[in-house]
């Protein structure tokens, strides 16, 4: 076995030479496969036992993800997987000391005799923050010990403390405050991760892909924080189990529901009201969680609107039920359903008309956990995901007694199967393998018109299908005390209408501990993306279309390397990380100059437009440095993030083939997030953000120019007639910088424990110093006698906005 410290192994037949005594590894000539699978088998000692089990929250029975499970004497450990399972296989010992630690929970220590396989299920109790002002030497999980890089975990509790627009707690808005992640326009929930577009993020809720994560035209995300258990963002160093997107993976898991007793929480804000109920159907065996949210402005305004009625609302609903068949088998069924609807009703003596938008997501996931042995864990998922967007117009002519109905819609529907196994043969290896296959059904556009007024009927519906599959193998290998490696390979495959694509995607992350609490990390990831989002507006609105790779539009590809340093300051519970990254993307989808997909203008024309004609493929480069100082425990928690980055693009048919800065290329991006627990009853919070202005094209001059309109006389002689057109001289694309964006938000929460539970009043102020940040610019001309002036105008969205909300839980 390659032991934890002094390694001296020589298998001359295989030409493997490892000498760690003098810190020198001479050569490797065997493949990674031999190392990962053959070597562990050769190196098994005679008597080994396994300690395994599930780690759960004591109060609710909720399984905990990423809990650090550490054997102090052997200096080896592991973390719980997505379902709270852990397994450690070690040589037998008279006594072992097992330490279980997790941020926000009291550390548990167990002294056990280890002469046989053990099953140890652990219930962790939440820690009380005020009692942890003095940080003890208790061993918490440290980022310097994890092989993961470019990955950030957020606790839902952290998200709930951050002040936001209109007081609506929003996962994506908090994600936007992390280094390497940029928001698009003011208020938008779109994520731009390390120079990638919003379609390059794989957003997963309980294994189901969420295609459009926005409510209210992008101002709010559709994730209800009350229903979430974990949020993890990966920006680089992607493990092989992830695939299908170039820039990030945002994985969220819903709570399972309290297995011990019934609880409820909810709240009322300026925009919406929400409620969550969870509890056991069969204690410790079967639990359920139901969580819903709805805007209420339409209900309040409804009585005051008569002939004309404008209505907008959104709602979302999360549900999860799970059943524990025992140690070996567990079943989870979860789902999300959300919808936004806008309608304009017009009722007059002559007409009745209902015009509107609606869009929404629906997901459903059935998961079956099965434990084959105490070292081999599996999960099988059957997943459904759907996103649809529609425009409709219902018109009734009262006098003619005739109807008109038109509907335009687009969307995507997925049916997936996913199988994953976790194999933990010994503490040096955590092997994950699996496959996924997704049947995509795209509906780029459909137009249906039934016009009884003009006796006209149109039914034009287009469907396109694709099958996206992936198979992966990865190993988190801990060959030396100071070295951790996550190596893996993914084979991805896509069946398009006329063509098939397949690629091998190697992945590697390495963490080298330079000293206690200080690690050097590096990673490489190759990614492919087979589906693309065509944006109508550049705003990540609901009118964006999801389309597949075709024979003409190739898969987007990226290769990313990252190098970083992580230092944990245990005494102050601080973590500092610095990462540099370089990402090259090819076959990136761009829009031909002047292209528009605003299908809402005329659905008839939209049906004729082929989106493939309006897009162009190019290259993109993104590189930069990210700094993050985090504090996760104590009275004061939060982080300071800074990103220095560059993002360039190049398309043959854009900017005359020259490179240009991407619209959201942001040289400097700073975010400061702080929460301070003043007392048991009062929590203060604040965020400040700064970002370099967006890059746009702005014309400084214009000119009249002739265009050729050839004409012919009766004798067939050609003559020129020059048309007169206005041209704008933009120079190079995206060379004008908008004004920088900065904003301060503050909030205060008042907690009070009542007989029935706890209530929280929160007062927050968005954009405290009323910074008028630019949303977009436009040029205009004004006439001031006797002259005309050209002026650039700025449109800003949100001034200072105070808000108040009330929350409760019992």
């Amino acid at each position, binding site marked *: 076995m390659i032991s934890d410290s002094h390694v001296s192994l020589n298998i001359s037949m295989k030409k493997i030479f490892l000498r760690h005594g003098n810190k020198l590894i001479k050569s490797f000539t065997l493949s990674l496969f031999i190392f990962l699978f053959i070597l562990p088998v050769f190196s098994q000692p005679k008597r080994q036992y396994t300690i395994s089990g599930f780690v759960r929250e004591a109060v609710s029975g909720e399984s905990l993800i990423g809990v650090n499970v550490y054997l102090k004497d052997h200096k080896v450990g592991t973390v719980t997987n997505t379902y709270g399972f852990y397994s450690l296989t070690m040589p037998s010992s008279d006594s072992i000391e097992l330490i279980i630690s997790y941020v926000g929970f009291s550390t548990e220590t167990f002294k056990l005799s280890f002469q046989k396989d053990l099953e140890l299920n652990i219930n962790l109790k939440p820690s009380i923050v005020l009692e942890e002002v003095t940080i003890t030497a208790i061993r918490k999980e440290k980022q310097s010990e994890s092989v993961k890089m470019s990955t950030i975990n957020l606790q839902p509790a952290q998200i709930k403390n951050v002040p936001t627009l209109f007081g609506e707690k929003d996962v994506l808005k908090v994600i936007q405050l992390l280094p390497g992640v940029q928001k698009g*326009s003011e208020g938008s929930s779109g994520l731009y991760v390390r120079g990638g577009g919003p379609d390059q993020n794989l957003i997963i809720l309980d294994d189901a892909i969420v295609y459009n994560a926005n409510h209210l035209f992008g101002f709010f995300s559709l994730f209800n924080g009350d229903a979430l258990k974990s949020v993890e963002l990966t920006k680089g160093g992607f493990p092989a189990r992830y695939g299908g997107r170039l820039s990030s993976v945002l994985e969220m898991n819903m709570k399972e529901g309290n297995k011990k007793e019934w609880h409820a929480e909810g709240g009322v804000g300026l925009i919406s009201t929400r409620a969550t109920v969870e509890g056991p159907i069969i204690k410790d065996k079967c639990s359920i969680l139901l969580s819903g949210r709805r805007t209420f402005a339409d209900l309040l305004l409804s009585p005051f609107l008569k002939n004309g009625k404008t209505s*907008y609302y959104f709602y979302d609903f999360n549900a999860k039920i799970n059943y524990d068949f025992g140690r070996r088998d567990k079943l989870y069924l979860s789902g999300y359903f959300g919808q936004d609807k806008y309608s*304009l009703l017009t009722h007059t003596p002559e*007409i009745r*008309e209902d*015009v509107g*938008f609606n869009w929404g997501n629906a997901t459903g996931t059935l998961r079956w956990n099965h434990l084959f042995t105490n070292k081999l864990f599996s999960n099988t998922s059957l997943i459904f995901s759907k996103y649809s967007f529609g425009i409709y*117009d219902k018109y009734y002519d009262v006098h003619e007694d005739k109807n008109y109905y038109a509907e335009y819609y687009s969307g995507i529907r997925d049916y997936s199967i996913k199988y994953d196994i976790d194999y933990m043969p010994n503490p040096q290896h955590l092997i994950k393998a699996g496959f996924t296959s997704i049947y995509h059904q795209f509906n780029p556009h459909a137009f249906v018109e039934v016009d009884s007024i003009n006796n006209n009927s149109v039914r034009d519906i287009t469907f396109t299908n694709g099958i996206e599959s992936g198979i992966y193998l990865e190993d988190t290998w801990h060959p030396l005390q100071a070295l951790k490696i996550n190596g893996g390979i993914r084979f991805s495959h896509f069946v398009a209408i006329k063509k098939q694509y397949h690629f091998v995607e190697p992945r590697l992350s390495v963490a080298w501990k330079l000293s206690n609490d200080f690690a050097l990390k590096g990673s490489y990831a190759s990614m492919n993306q087979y589906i693309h989002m065509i944006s109508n507006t*550049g*705003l990540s609105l609901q009118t964006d279309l999801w389309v597949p790779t075709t024979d003409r539009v190739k898969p987007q590809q990226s290769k990313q390397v990252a190098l970083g340093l992580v230092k944990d300051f245990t005494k102050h519970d601080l973590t500092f990380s610095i990462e540099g990254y370089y990402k090259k993307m090819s076959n990136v989808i761009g829009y*031909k*100059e*002047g*292209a*528009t997909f*605003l299908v*809402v*203008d*005329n659905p008839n024309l939209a049906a004729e437009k082929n989106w493939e004609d309006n897009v162009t493929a190019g290259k993109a480069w993104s590189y930069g440095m990210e700094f993050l100082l985090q504090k996760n425990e104590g009275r004061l928690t939060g982080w300071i993030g800074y990103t220095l980055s560059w993002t360039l693009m190049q398309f043959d048919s854009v900017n005359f083939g020259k490179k240009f800065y991407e619209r959201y290329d942001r040289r400097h991006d700073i975010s400061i997030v702080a929460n301070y627990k003043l007392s048991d009853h009062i929590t203060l919070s604040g965020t400040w953000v700064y970002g370099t202005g967006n890059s746009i*094209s*702005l*014309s*400084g*001059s*214009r*000119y*009249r*120019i*002739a*265009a*050729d309109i*050839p004409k*012919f006389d009766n004798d*067939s002689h*050609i*003559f*020129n007639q*020059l048309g007169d*057109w206005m*041209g704008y*001289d933009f120079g190079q694309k995206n060379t*004008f*910088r*908008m*004004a920088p964006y900065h904003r301060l938000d503050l909030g205060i929460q008042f907690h009070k424990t009542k007989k029935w539970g706890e209530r929280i009043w929160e007062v927050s102020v968005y954009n405290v110093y009323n910074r*008028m940040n630019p*949303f977009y*610019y*436009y040029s205009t*001309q004004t006439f001031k006698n006797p*002259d*005309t*002036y050209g*002026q*650039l*105008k*700025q*449109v*800003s*969205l949100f001034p200072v906005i105070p808000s108040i909300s009330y929350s409760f839980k019992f």
Partner: protein
Amino acid sequence: MIPFKTKYFIPVLLTLLITSCTKDVNNLKLPDFEQKLVLSSFISPNLPVIELTVDCNMNNFGKLFPPEPPGKVTILLTNGIDEVRIDTTLLKSLHNKILVKNMPVKEGKSFKIKVINSKGLSAEASCAVPIKRDFHIEVDTTRLLSTDPFGGNTRSTLSIKVSITDFPGESNYYRLLITTQTYGGSELSGQPEKGDVVFSDKGKDGKKFVLRSVTFFSNYIDSIAKVDSSFLRIYLLNTDKPYYDFHQSLLTSLNSGDGNPFSEPAPLYSNVSNGVGILASYTVDSLIFRVK
């Protein structure tokens, strides 16, 4: 009914209007205005004269003045063999048109225009005149007679399908024009659909391909007679790439945006160095076809 475009943008507009505010931008350095000469000319061996316009551009911000006249200019034209120099004074703010009669445009040769004015501005452009080719233009017509449901008149629809054979081994760019010549009546003319105004042989090198059909309508009997006894004149312009790029960018520019401030801007193609504008060329292949 509310127009489609307006009513579907209402929610977005409402959202913006409720919360947005507009102000002048005074704290940013706007793009500098650089005065340039604007040159445009489309030349062909088939044209009797060379026509070119020389103007100046104008600023977009601050006090807006009409474009300055180019003033005293020297224009140098070269067709690869001959050179012509024109010294003139252009005093109009716009549409300073110059006709050059004594400079033949030769197919297969490069053509260059350089303009210098007394203020030191200059603009220079060149193009390669395409060689005249025979593209084997073929025409297929279909005539459909029907009764107008509203007026009861007999209506004639004449559909014309034009095929050409691309010249192999070179990139070709085209523009198609079709007219009918009638006897004793006014001329009817038709353009192919918008997407076919300018097009290329990309992916069709050397192949015969059918262009979209063009349809002429006639609602009256006397017009039908004229159409039936008329000639179709088909002109296929074999253009250079700048001609194609410029007109493509012009079409894109005209159709871009739809009022969306986030749409990608569509700059006009320019092949004029130091200044802006276009110098492009073409030759013409034609076919006269008697409608049966």
